[in-house]
């Protein structure tokens, strides 16, 4: 099970990142649990200065931008195969 957290207070880019993550997860049949973190106190526990942030298995992988589909696929399939 890959644990994914999307950090963002509900801005347009955060929603787009979440949708893209769901799409990649579905396309590659990855067993994943996607959590939306919208509370600023929770978000700021991660060392980010700009949203959206993406955390995969408790590791921050991107912040302040929407990674493209290819990057997301690499990260998520990589995380899935480690387990």
């Amino acid at each position, binding site marked *: 099970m890959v644990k994914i957290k999307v950090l963002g207070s509900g801005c347009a880019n955060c929603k787009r990142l979440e949708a893209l993550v769901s799409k990649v997860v579905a396309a590659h049949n990855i067993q994943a649990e996607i959590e939306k973190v919208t509370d600023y106190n929770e978000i700021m526990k991660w060392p980010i200065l*700009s949203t959206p942030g993406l955390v995969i298995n408790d590791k921050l992988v*991107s912040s302040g931008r929407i990674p493209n589909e290819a990057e997301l696929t690499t990260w998520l399939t990589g995380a899935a195969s480690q387990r």
Partner: protein
Amino acid sequence: MGQAISTVLKSGQRRPGSVYWVVGLAAVGWVIAYSSIQSLADWLAYSALGLARGSHLGEALAFFLYDVPKILLLLSGMIFAISIVRTFFSPERTRAMLGGKRQGVGNALAALLGIVTPFCSCSAVPLFIGFVESGVPLGVTFSFLIAAPTINEVAVVMLYGLFGWRVAGLYIASGLTIAIIAGIVIGRLRMERYVEDFVWQRQVTASGLEEHLTWPDRFQRAWDSVKEIVGKVWLYVMIGIGVGAAIHGYVPESALAGIMGKQAWWSVPAAVLLGIPLYSNAAGVIPVVSALMEKGASLGTVLAFMMSVVGLSLPEMIILRRVLKPQLIAVFIGVIAVAIVITGYVFNLVV
């Protein structure tokens, strides 16, 4: 074409050489397209559609057919270039550069970095907390928070496209001045106690990601942001230019000199007030004010309106309320509004 570029950029990660060819060819294509807009628009309006030169409809349509492709091409090209510059900056790096800087120097540096650091007003809260808790002075943080949205790439490119480089340059210079002065004022007023308490009580978190980007990565990122930004504003640009074209073709010369000209002293503060609630439509507002200016509105009034639209936005204030007490929000709005009004008067006097 967009799809083709994406595909090549992706394959370019395996064969880096081809990416430079694609970017180079796209640049050549861009220059050819940009230099042939005027003749194409004239041909379409006056020859293909057979409208008479000097007629209301003909003038309006030629204006529209010329400005829409011109602005969209300018936006795509300039955003690509600016985005490449921005891949060399990040909020984390900016914070590291600003840490421990004194007032004055720190405010100027923060305002300049506000132009090149990638920033979206939805990130204002984490950025504010991250800056303040790591020791960036409050006034310096505000200089950044004012400059970053005010001097934004869409506003600057559209001003350049519709008014020329002189107005775009004046806009950047006055945006920087306002950000620096407002930041210094807020710093001097010792407003620290009006920051919400939880901000000061937080543990300082270590700095985040350090990325190593190759040139194909930078091109890919820049292309992604062109698609994102142009995708978001093109409709506003078209509506704005449409309204502007109608004004251009139908409103008589100097019809607005009385209400938006230099003689009407109240037009500057009125323009600033009117600009506060208008935010997301900056892309649509500029073509309209450009047409208004042609009909007698003065430059200072128009610039003040523009800055108020992009620099003082209600959504951003609502977001910042999470970390700032109402008194500080009021000071923030007040200081910027006054600074913009003064800028407007100065331009009306000087230009």
